[in-house]
């Protein structure tokens, strides 16, 4: 649905057991590189407007339509203290009118032209998109350019939207046991870095934003020199550049002081939290601080993620779900493409009658086995082939291609979408063992356990449940 807090969804790891690995390195021109890996080049045209706005254009003529996205270098990580969720709230308000169009016009114009639209906010970015017939590219550019500078914020529009966001929070977090668990896990893993805050914001903060808060945030971050347009689909590159210049070119760039810099102090001792909540089954998740593409350990961490938790042949799935049959699901999740280092998760959901502690112990037993015995050539090769195929499959959808480009651009370089296979091919068993030892150690770990209060007709009021087990 609409105005998605994307990473909130991604955090429900059970639904997304495999994150498509996206890597760094140089883009390869040829179809097969020296390591014998198949690479299909991304034929991206880069364009930069004189006001500093960037554009990435990628033709794909399989369907007579385009995906147009505008990415802003702002997300929940950039929010001022006490204003968590303001990036997401602003994203909602971007649909509620400008000096040129009334509060309901944006949607009406796009949809009566056969287009769909939406937006999403994450830790590092906010992005807006339209999917529409190719000949309407200029139309949606005009609309996006308009709301980049002409947004009108009014109390009568904010009041209902604030309630909408509270409902969104109830759906995603408060009525979702795993949603709530991962929210707490992040808040405990990070002590300083703003990744500790939920993208949607803490409920008390959502209640408190003023129009000024939103306006300040908008003025600071919504400027062409902090934006990237991404176009994927059936269009002419020259014509699209002409349209970009026409619609976005006249927008003046503003002095942009850049995004806040922040670091998370090294974790030196294990942390643990318990969430007691109405749920059918327990859940256990462990988070470890891990570097991203900017660090040379990145490729080995990607391989480690895949070997431990990438799908049904992964070690965690094979051991916990297939062999021991103590879990309904188990896996790993690591983020390679991000602005700042994120978390390497290991997780599992106990099967009915099985204990969270046994799932936790077995996950760690698999980590230790990997550290003790390493990875065979066959397993490395198989995982590499799997990533290779999935990387090419990830080029199939227009929307997903645009997503990958935007996300990589925000993280630092759009070329992160491709060309990482050669660096993965160089990863050895010793590298994987080394990064497993270095990052999956207990001092660097926060463990979160969901302890279910069985739902029954006569359960304690959920009002109170929210605060139970708080360990922050």
């Amino acid at each position, binding site marked *: 649905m*609409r105005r998605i807090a994307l990473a909130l969804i991604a955090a429900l790891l059970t639904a997304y057991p495999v994150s498509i690995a996206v890597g760094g390195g140089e883009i390869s021109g040829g179809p097969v590189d020296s390591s014998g890996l198949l690479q*299909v080049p991304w034929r991206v045209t880069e364009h930069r407007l004189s006001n500093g706005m960037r554009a990435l254009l990628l033709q794909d003529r399989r*369907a*007579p*339509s385009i*995906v147009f996205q505008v990415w802003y270098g702002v997300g929940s990580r950039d929010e001022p203290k006490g204003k968590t969720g303001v990036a997401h709230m602003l994203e909602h308000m971007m*649909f509620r009118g400008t000096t040129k169009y009334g509060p309901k016009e944006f*949607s009406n114009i796009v*949809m*009566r*032209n*056969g*287009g*769909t639209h939406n937006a999403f906010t994450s830790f590092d970015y906010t992005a807006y998109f339209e*999917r529409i*017939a*190719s*000949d*309407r590219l200029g139309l949606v550019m005009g609309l996006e350019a308009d709301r980049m500078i002409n947004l009108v914020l009014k109390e009568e529009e904010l*009041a*209902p939207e*604030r*309630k*909408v*966001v*509270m*409902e969104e929070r*109830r759906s995603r977090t*408060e*009525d979702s046991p795993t949603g709530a668990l991962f929210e707490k896990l992040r808040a405990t893993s990070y002590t300083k870095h703003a990744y500790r805050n939920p993208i949607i914001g803490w409920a008390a903060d959502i209640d408190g934003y003023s129009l000024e808060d939103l306006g300040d945030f908008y003025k600071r971050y919504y400027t062409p020199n902090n934006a990237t347009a991404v176009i994927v689909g059936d269009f002419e590159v020259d014509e699209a550049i002409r349209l970009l210049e026409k619609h976005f070119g006249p927008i003046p760039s503003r002095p942009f002081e850049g995004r806040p810099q922040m670091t998370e102090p090294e974790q030196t001792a294990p942390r643990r939290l318990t969430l007691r909540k*109405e749920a*059918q*089954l327990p859940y256990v998740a462990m988070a470890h601080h891990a570097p991203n593409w900017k660090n040379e350990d990145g490729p080995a961490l990607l391989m480690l993620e895949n070997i431990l938790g990438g*799908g*049904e*042949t992964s070690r965690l799935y094979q051991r916990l779900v297939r062999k021991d*049959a103590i879990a*309904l699901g188990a896996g790993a999740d690591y983020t390679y493409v991000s602005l700042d280092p994120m978390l390497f998760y290991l997780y599992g959901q106990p099967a*009915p009658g099985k204990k969270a502690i046994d799932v936790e112990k077995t996950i760690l037993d698999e980590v230790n086995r990997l550290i003790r015995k390493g990875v065979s050539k066959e397993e490395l090769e*198989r*995982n590499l*082939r*799997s990533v*290779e*195929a*999935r990387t*090419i*499959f990830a*080029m*199939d*959808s*227009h*929307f*997903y291609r645009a997503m990958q480009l935007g996300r990589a651009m925000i993280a630092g370089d759009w070329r992160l979408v491709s060309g990482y296979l050669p660096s993965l091919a160089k990863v050895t068993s010793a590298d994987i063992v080394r990064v497993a030892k270095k990052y999956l150690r207990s001092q660097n770990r926060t463990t979160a356990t969901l302890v279910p209060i069985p*739902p029954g*007709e006569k*359960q*304690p*009021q*959920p009002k109170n449940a929210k605060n139970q087990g708080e360990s922050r």
Partner: protein
Amino acid sequence: MNPLRWILRAAGALIISLAVSLPASAAVLTYDREELPGGAVLLVKESQELPIITIRVSFPGGTRYEPLEKQGLANLTAGMLVRGTRRRSSSAIEKLNDRIGGGVGVSAGRDFSAASIRLLTRDLERGMDLLADVLRRPLFPGKELEKMKTRTLGGLQRKKDRPGHLADRAFRERLFGSHPYGRQVEGTPETIKKIRRKDLVKFHRQRYGMKGAIFIFVGDISLARARGLVMGHFGGWRSRPGPSPVEPAGSNEAKGKMTIIKIDRPFKQATVLLGNRSISRRHKDFYAARVMNYILGGGSFESRITKNIREEKGLVYSAYSYFAAGMDTGHWRLSLQTKNASANQAIAEAIIEIRKMQDEGVGDRELSEAKAFITGNFATRFQSSSRIAEYILAVERLGFGPGYADEYLDLISAVTKDQVQKAAKKHIRLDEAVLTVVGILDEAKLEY
């Protein structure tokens, strides 16, 4: 679709001038269709832009063919196909799946079951070999079956955390009873426990084979190559269909008043489902109903229900309605979530919008904008191979031909205001509706 014809027709129906959207060319959805020996159909949409081939194989193997006392059999049969064959162990299949980037998966729905696989062009031969192996020569090992039953039971338990699932289960059951549309695909704990290996063997023998199979290839492959592969791997494959136990969908009881189902669970939001039994996908009114529903609750931010209860009143994050139009029957539903204390208000506003649609119909502008969206948006949806494959499959299953895209756009364009209002009166029936609410009933204090 002839755009000129469309413009003329739209212009005839319109008086006010609007940014009338031309439908993006439906040519993207032309494909080759061929009937194969043995009663199967082959559908191919070739495109060489990427070295990828997306394959679906559909069978008449949905839950409608399973005995009532063995609900879940179709689902288990589909899942167990990849758990070992005469040539490959379960673990060998998993490893090969991994190597080719995901591999083959099989799942069952209410009407059909389907295998899907996505392959790099270079893996086409071994991918087809694997596909044929799991579909034709499964062993259904007893030990694997026990594990899968346990996991299915666990999955059913886990789903109870989702208010939407609890509401859907009760709602379907009340609307359709023991008809397949009223049951859960996974079955129930009681029926799953009764399923034995011999049941899977029999179900597979009856429901999987060339007769009734639909093979779909999208991507880097020609019709001739696809035909050669299918005949080479699947030629001569026979099924032995037995009697079909499907129940006719009986009529609704309790006419004249809404049925209310209240489920007390400690969620912060009340999950509301309101709907009634309605038309099948092949019903002639489907197109008018589709346009009507877009305006009422299906057109995301443009729908009346979203404008009212989300944009103006802020009661929900999401509220939408749709016709779940199936093969031989269907239903209409409205779904929303709101904090428990707002449940009455949200339901009341939704009902006001439904009644207004039935009593007053729609305006010219609304109608033309709805048609402009549905026709203009149509071809833009097919931006990935899997979306194209799903579309082609749906068209074939419904018995429409490769020219259906044009037909669909024409039929939508021809819908009149009068038809829209009639569709609202006839196919949304508050007097036979089921209203399901899951939430904290003490807080919701439902007036229904």
